[in-house]
């Protein structure tokens, strides 16, 4: 029977408490840091050789869908009532709204060193010491809205620009494509300044601190953000009935993208499932 992922702003006090408790237990067991490592390991950029799976590639969406499912399974081994909530950043847009409350993810980092001082993921609790990271900071950091040079979260109309595109992705299937739902949602733009961050990428930037680096998984908001991205994929599928993951077939040997992207029926590392198998997960969970 499918379980339900909820909007984080609608969770009851009990649901918030159980979600936090399960996260802390997954961290205590050492499983959480494996997720951080996996995300670092699979971030392969498109100006370099090799297969891209998690970013700058069509499999950005199925890769993170499966990644979320793994975390959710770890949480549900601790407490079978827990699911990953989603953060709709087109609605909850301030540094004090959900999910930045003391009983959930805690608030912004302090000004001096961006250390998160409130909530269950503050370093002083002893429950959330960063083990895997880009910097030597052991504490979680945030810079909500980027104080030094403020930016805003993506708006509903900016997200709509991605959702309205009827094609999943286009050749060369990387960060340079200017059409296709996938990159419009993932958010690789060109140019300088704040236009360089769009949708998914911009949210990472807006949260700042750990979330803007390779070890972004260290901030639990990573999962709430990606649950919403995942929900956007589901909404896009419903809106463009019959639209499928692209490419359907792998680029050929003559293509620059040969063996560098995962086609619909190909296995997606590190799991061995195919994007096709991940297109419909309604048997596992649904969104409220």
């Amino acid at each position: 029977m499918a379980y339900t992922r909820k909007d984080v702003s609608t969770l009851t006090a009990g649901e918030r408490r159980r979600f936090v408790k399960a996260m802390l237990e997954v961290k205590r067991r050492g499983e959480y840091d494996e997720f951080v490592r996996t995300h670092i390991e699979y971030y392969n950029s498109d100006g370099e050789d090799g297969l891209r799976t998690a970013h700058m590639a069509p499999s950005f969406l199925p890769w993170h869908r499966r990644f979320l499912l793994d975390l959710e399974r770890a949480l549900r081994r601790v407490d079978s009532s827990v699911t990953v909530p989603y953060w709709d950043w087109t609605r909850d847009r301030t540094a004090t709204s959900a999910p930045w409350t003391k009983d959930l993810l805690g608030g912004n980092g302090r000004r001096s060193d961006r250390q998160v001082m409130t909530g269950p993921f503050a370093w002083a609790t002893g429950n959330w010491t960063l083990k895997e990271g880009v910097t030597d900071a052991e504490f979680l950091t945030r810079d909500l809205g980027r104080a030094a040079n403020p930016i805003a979260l993506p708006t509903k109309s900016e997200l709509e620009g991605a959702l309205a595109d009827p094609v999943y992705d286009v050749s060369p299937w990387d960060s340079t494509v200017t059409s296709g739902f996938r990159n419009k949602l993932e958010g690789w733009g060109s140019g300088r300044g704040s236009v360089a961050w769009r949708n998914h990428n911009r949210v990472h930037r807006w949260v700042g601190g750990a979330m803007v680096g390779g070890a972004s998984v260290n901030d639990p908001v990573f999962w709430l953000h990606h649950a919403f991205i995942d929900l956007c994929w589901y909404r896009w599928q419903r809106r463009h009935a019959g639209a499928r993951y692209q490419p359907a077939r792998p680029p050929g040997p003559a293509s620059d993208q040969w063996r560098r992207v995962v086609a619909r029926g190909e296995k997606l590392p590190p799991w061995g499932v195919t994007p096709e198998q991940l297109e419909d997960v309604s048997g596992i969970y649904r969104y409220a």
Partner: protein
Amino acid sequence: MVVSVEVAAVGTARSRGSRRPRGGSARVSRRDVLLGLFGPVAVAAAFVPVAAATRSLRAAEPPADIVFDETYRGRRIRGIRTSATSAGRVFDDAQWHVTVDGRPLHLMRRADGTWLSMVDHYRSYGTPLEATRAAVDELGPGRHLREGTEPHMGGDHGVHA
């Protein structure tokens, strides 16, 4: 201010497409240069993963260019481009090794030729220097890059440019 120093190994051809850095020339080997700059420990930290991961280090040491070396917001940032060869790269064949306060900063290249770093992973910048400065902006006071970050899947630790 960007201080650029050219260093090149004697008798080794320059790589194609590399820019002429400003400043004077010194003819020493890359290894000597790096040892002088960072000391053996830092050189090992910067190069061991590359040597392990790539086929690009040759017996004849290729030229190394210090493309930037400056203090930015109190941090010493250095970018060294080595002209090691490697087949199949999208652009030309040099490799970058960037450090912040002596610690390696992993840079990645986007298909459009721009750069991103491990610290600032969700947008890219026009040059390695810009990407490095942006990483410093994000590091925050008192924090340093962690040594020994996991290498990326299938990728070299150094970045070809």
